[in-house]
C-alpha cells in the first residue's frame, strides 16, 4: 500500500506556497521584459515562464514524494 503521508505533508504546506505565486509572476514578467520590447510578446513569454516554473516545482515535489515512498 502506498504511503500518502509524505504527500499530505508536502501539500499540507500549500498555504506557504502562496508566497511563491507573486514571486513567480514578477520574476516571469521581468525576465520576459528583458527578452522582448513589445508588451504582447512580454506577456506571452511570461506565461510560458510561469508554466515552466510551476511545472518544475511540481516535478521536484513529485520527485521528493517518490523518494519518500521508496525509502
Amino acid at each position, binding site marked *: 500500500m502506498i504511503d500518502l503521508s509524505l504527500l499530505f505533508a508536502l501539500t499540507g504546506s500549500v498555504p*506557504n506556497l502562496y*508566497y511563491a505565486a*507573486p*514571486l513567480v509572476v*514578477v*520574476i516571469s*514578467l*521581468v*525576465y520576459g*521584459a*528583458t*527578452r*522582448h*520590447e*513589445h*508588451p504582447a510578446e*512580454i506577456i506571452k513569454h511570461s506565461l510560458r515562464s510561469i508554466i515552466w516554473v510551476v511545472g518544475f516545482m511540481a516535478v521536484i515535489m513529485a520527485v521528493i514524494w517518490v523518494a519518500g515512498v521508496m525509502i
Partner: protein
Amino acid sequence: MSEIVYPQEQGEPVVVNLGNPYVAAVLAWLIPGAGHFYQLRFAKGLLFMLCVLVTYFVGLGLGHGRVVYASNRPNDFRWQYPLFQIHCGAVALPALVQAYKTKDGDDPYFVLCERYPAKYSEADLSLKRIEEDNKPAVMPKNTLKDGFMAPPPGIADPAHQDVLARWHFDYKHFFEMGTLYTMIAGVLNLLAVYDAFCGPAILTADQRERLESKKKGQDQI
C-alpha cells in the same frame, strides 16, 4: 544617443533608442523603471517599477520594516543587503543612513519599539518589549530601540537571546519571507538596469536560425 535595430523575420524591425546608456543605467538603478522613462520606454518602465517596488515593499512589510538593514558587526554580517537588497536603489538606501547613525550606539531614526534591559547579555535576562498597554511601572533608563531599516540594537551574541533572535522569534517565517522578497526585488532591478543599458536580449533572425540548426543537429545525434 545609441539606437539598436533588431531585424525581425516578419514585420517591422524592433527599434530601441537607449539614449545615453550610462545615464539610463544609473537612473534605473536609483529608481526602478526611471531609466526606461528616460529612454521614453514607458510601458517597460512602468512594468519594472511596479514589479520591483511592489515586491520590495511587500517584503519590507512582511518583515515589519526590519528585514532591510546594513550591518557588518561581529556575528551579524547582513550579506543580503550589499549583495541583493541594495540594488533596489534609493528605497534601500535609508538602511545605510541608519547603519551610520547607530554605529556608535546612538538611537536610530524612526523608532519602531523599545526593549529592556539594555544589558541583557550580562544579566542573561530575556528582552522585554515595551508596549503601549504593557508599560513597566518604572521606565528603564536605557532601552534598546528597534529602528525602521536599522540594524538590531545591542550586541549580537549567539549565546544569548539578542534582538535579532527576538525578531526571528516574533515574526517567524515572515522575517525570512520578507528577506527573500526584498532580495529578489534587488535582483529584478539588476535585470532592469541591464535592459536599460544594453536593450532587450531579443534574438535576431540569424541567431534564431543558428539555435534551431544547433537543436536539429543535436536531435540527429
